[in-house]
């Protein structure tokens, strides 16, 4: 115990004897630690935002369809949601596990304005419910308005689609498609607003129409094409999915989570996360090697001193411990300061997301339409950063510490 006190004291004093060296090592650890924290927070926050944007714009976390609809989105692939499914959904909503759910019908249609005709996808929205679920219908360009619950033969459409048709707000377009019963469905509809989401697949092709009107126009009866569900906590996804699978017939109904609904984003996230790991690994290595370097140098500098200590009877084990404790002190102080600095940086970038909007078109090539990337600091990130830096620093200190403990006292005292 007495030995231990002396070791601690010696180690502590040693690190402050050469202040410049210690400060240098500390700075490396602090900055390294902060950078790793920030790097991870940025990748984590960015991917989460990307997924969140892609999910909330129109897809939802979960969708329920007639089996085969997602692959082949035709009118025929419709289903009648049975009462068991609806009551389960309401139950989950009461338990706060899902935010809300909404039903949609969807079909391809010809849209004609004057002499121009274009193909489009018409999707119905339950105006009140979708407010809880998605954001696309609210991204209305100035001059138009959102759909409201009293709208019937009014629609909103993507701004690119409107441009291609040569139409705009307050114009009347003709919609032509085939109804669920095979008959010709035609309707004159008034455009009340144009939306711009940044996602070309919506802006170029999509028309949103009030659900009740769509059901009537397309002669859907009780049939619908999809139920979209928004959940409160992403960790509940699998549990909700298995609950829903229990009350539906797997041979006729498909339940898809956001991973299946937005596979392009998921793939992008995989790339993004791996890049993040590579960055973190490089930073970890830099920090660890710096610690190794400094401790190594300080041991080398003090060869003679260790020689004297060994000559007057300090055991090699104690010399080893002194050096190890030096690096423990430096690392712990460094990590503590680094975590504080890192958290400050992360918090700043949480509220001031990095804006990549200048590269929006390049991002769009990968199917990514998020351009503001906030940092998100998680407890896991903090713990992992601290543990990994600590462990690697200590691990790398073992080499110089071992070397010092194995010095030959006679040679060491003669060392200059």
């Amino acid at each position, binding site marked *: 115990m007495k030995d231990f006190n002396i070791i601690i004291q010696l180690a502590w004093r040693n690190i402050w004897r050469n202040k410049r060296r210690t400060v240098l090592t500390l700075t490396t650890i602090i900055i390294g630690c902060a950078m790793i924290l920030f790097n991870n927070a940025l990748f984590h926050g960015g991917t989460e935002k990307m997924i969140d944007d892609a999910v909330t714009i129109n897809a939802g976390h979960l969708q329920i369809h007639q089996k085969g609809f997602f692959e082949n989105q035709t*009118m*025929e692939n419709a289903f009648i949601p049975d009462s068991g499914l609806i009551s389960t959904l309401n139950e989950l909503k009461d338990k706060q596990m899902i935010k809300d759910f909404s039903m949609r019908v969807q079909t391809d249609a*010809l849209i*004609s304005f004057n*002499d*121009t*005709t*274009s*193909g489009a996808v018409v999707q119905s929205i339950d105006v009140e419910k979708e407010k809880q679920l998605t954001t696309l219908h609210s991204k209305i360009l100035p001059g138009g308005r959102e759909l409201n619950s009293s709208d019937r033969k009014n629609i909103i459409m993507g701004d690119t689609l409107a441009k291609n048709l040569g139409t705009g707000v307050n114009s009347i377009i*003709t919609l*032509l498609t*085939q109804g*669920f*019963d*095979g*008959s*010709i469905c*035609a*309707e*004159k509809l008034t455009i009340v607003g144009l939306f711009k989401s940044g996602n070309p697949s919506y802006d170029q092709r999509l028309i949103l129409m009030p659900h009740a009107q769509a059901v009537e126009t397309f002669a859907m009866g009780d049939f619908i094409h999809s139920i979209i569900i928004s959940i409160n906590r992403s960790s509940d996804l699998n549990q909700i999915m298995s609950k829903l699978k229990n009350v539906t017939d797997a041979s006729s109904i498909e339940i898809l989570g956001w991973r299946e609904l937005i596979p392009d984003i998921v793939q992008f996230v995989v790339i993004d996360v791996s890049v993040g790991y590579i960055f973190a690994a490089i930073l970890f290595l830099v920090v660890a090697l710096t610690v190794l370097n400094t401790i190594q140098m300080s041991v080398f500098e003090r060869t003679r001193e260790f020689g004297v200590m060994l000559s007057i009877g300090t055991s090699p084990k104690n010399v080893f411990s002194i050096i190890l404790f030096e690096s423990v002190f430096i690392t712990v102080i460094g990590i503590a300061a680094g975590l504080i600095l890192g958290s400050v940086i992360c918090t700043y970038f949480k509220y001031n997301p990095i804006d990549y909007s200048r590269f929006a078109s390049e991002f769009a090539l990968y199917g990514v339409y998020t351009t503001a990337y906030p940092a998100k600091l998680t407890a896991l990130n903090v713990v992992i950063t601290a543990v990994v830096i600590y462990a690697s620093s200590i691990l790398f200190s073992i080499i110089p510490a071992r070397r010092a403990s194995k010095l030959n006292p006679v040679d060491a005292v003669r060392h200059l």
Partner: protein
Amino acid sequence: MSNKFKTLCVSLIVSIVFGYANIALAVNAKEIIEKSEDAMRGKSLTGNYSITIKTKRWTRVMEVKYQENRGKHQSMLEIYAPVKDAGNRFLLIKNDMWHYIQKTQNTIMIAPSMMLQSWMGSDFSNDDIVKESSLIDDYNQKIIGQEVIDGIKCYKLELNPKPDAPVVWGKIIYFARVSDYLLVRQEFYNEHNVMKKFLSCSNFKVMGGRTIPTLYKMEPSNDGERYTTLEIKSIKFNIPIPERIFSKQNLTRK
């Protein structure tokens, strides 16, 4: 096996192959298609058809009247039944197609790019219905053999689109009866040489003063559950059709 015998075999095979090819080449591929189209469509025609669309969920029967002036590349189709769809009309003049919608009482133009989309949810495309593209002008035809289809001896023709032709099929295989060149079966392939749909013609009988197939069935090749049939109820060939039939006034008349 002696060399002599080998030579004999080879020359025998060669002569059979070439002899067969010579027989096949005796008739011109283009001529077959021309005669077949002439027989089935004439210079002009006026016909009443019954179109049945069967899908997984529903079966629907439509009564339509079709008039065509082949030389001038004009056609007009009007739906008479069922009541819900009655009054919808389709007009084609050269490369332009219009659809008059009874319910909203307006006309929409069907862009050339939409000619290959489904006509009224059937397995026929707009192009199949109003015959904008031409098997004679837009394709190079060649005879690739003979085959027996449903017990009928047929020429097998391969039609490949000309480089600039406004068609999407990568290839069409056309089976015409050896006896009178009438169409028996037509297969539509995409550019990857995968068959997408096929048309089978049957019920050959005398109608409008000539023998023609009177039942046409189009089926997508990847889906056993749906098909569309087109049955000729009555047809008249080469009776002059007044020019006003193919006008926008007629298209939008009340």
